[in-house]
């Protein structure tokens, strides 16, 4: 289902490592279906990772990212128990969000 994100965040030494698996078809818009019609483009355009209130990462994605994208981010700081949130928007106005606590 569009919108789901599975997130894990783990403190490793001074670094917090975040892994996020997103459910999205990431359709490039270049492919044709069996009837020869172009399949409409449907891909994530903006993705962001937050640690508490702070924006840790912002990304602009495009059609080159594959289906069900897997994102890994490491940042300095963070403590077990802190909240990490990942959000995305796509070119069709869809959104996704997920959050977890750092372990």
């Amino acid at each position: 289902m569009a919108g789901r994100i599975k997130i894990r965040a783990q403190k490793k030494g001074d670094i917090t490592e975040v892994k996020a698996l997103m459910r999205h078809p990431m359709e490039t818009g270049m492919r044709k279906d069996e009837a020869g019609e172009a399949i409409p483009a449907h891909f994530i355009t903006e993705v962001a990772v937050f640690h508490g209130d702070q924006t840790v990462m912002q990304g602009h994605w495009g059609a080159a990212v594959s289906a069900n994208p897997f994102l890994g981010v490491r940042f300095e700081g963070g403590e077990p128990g802190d909240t990490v949130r990942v959000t995305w928007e796509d070119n069709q106005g869809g959104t996704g969000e997920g959050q977890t606590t750092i372990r």
Partner: protein
Amino acid sequence: MPRGYGVKTVFLWSVCLALSLGAARVPADGVFDQYRDLMGDDNPAVFVIDEGEELWFTAQGPKSATLEACDLGLGSGVTAGAYVRFPRYFADTNEVMDVEARLVHCMTTIQGRDLESVTAKPYSLRGDLGTEIEALVTWLAAESEGETIAPEQTHAAEREMYVLGEEIFFYRAGPHDFSCATCHEQSEMRIRLQSLPDLTSHAGAANAWGSWPAYRISQGLVRTMGWRMRDCFRQQRWPELQMGSTTSIALQTYMAVNAAGGVMSAPGLKR
């Protein structure tokens, strides 16, 4: 790996796979190995597992019923450990059935849904997020994670199905004279760079049977064994294998029995 600077150092890696399906000039699996390493224990199939579970408990059809009354061989509604006992004989249909055929049976009888519409699109096309049957099969396979592969072979019909499966396995046909055995009766072989399990042997069969259904990275989808066989036959230049057909059930019986004793670990992650 580059290091950033500043108070909050951000290191980012994301997987951008511009996959081309032509033969790559890389060692076997190459970029797919990198993907697997990055994923670690993760597998996009986890979404499909959740979706399958939801579907099981969703009321559908004219009878507005969930699939909770569906008997997968271990009693009504018992899903844990059911997948590893397939294919198996069912007295209520007087047939040996694979998981897909059994699900279709439950959808049509318990939920009252129309056979044509339930079977119209068994397998996703690339770009879909998955079909209902694929999601249910994925969840059911996960419900047998770690279990011993043990297809039923107590009923005469089940044993006949094995014999039939073996004969079909070796049946050469089509302009290229290909059978399943052409690629799958020898060990340590590969086609281009894709390694080929020997499905006539226990080790090869256990490896294959235990790792399907699987998330196919190149497809962005979870694919079932039924789909895998359909695609094999396409590459063999045969016509199209139908989901839940006798041939599908027979070949799965042959593989599952050869795999018996192995461990179920699906959904897997494949190129």
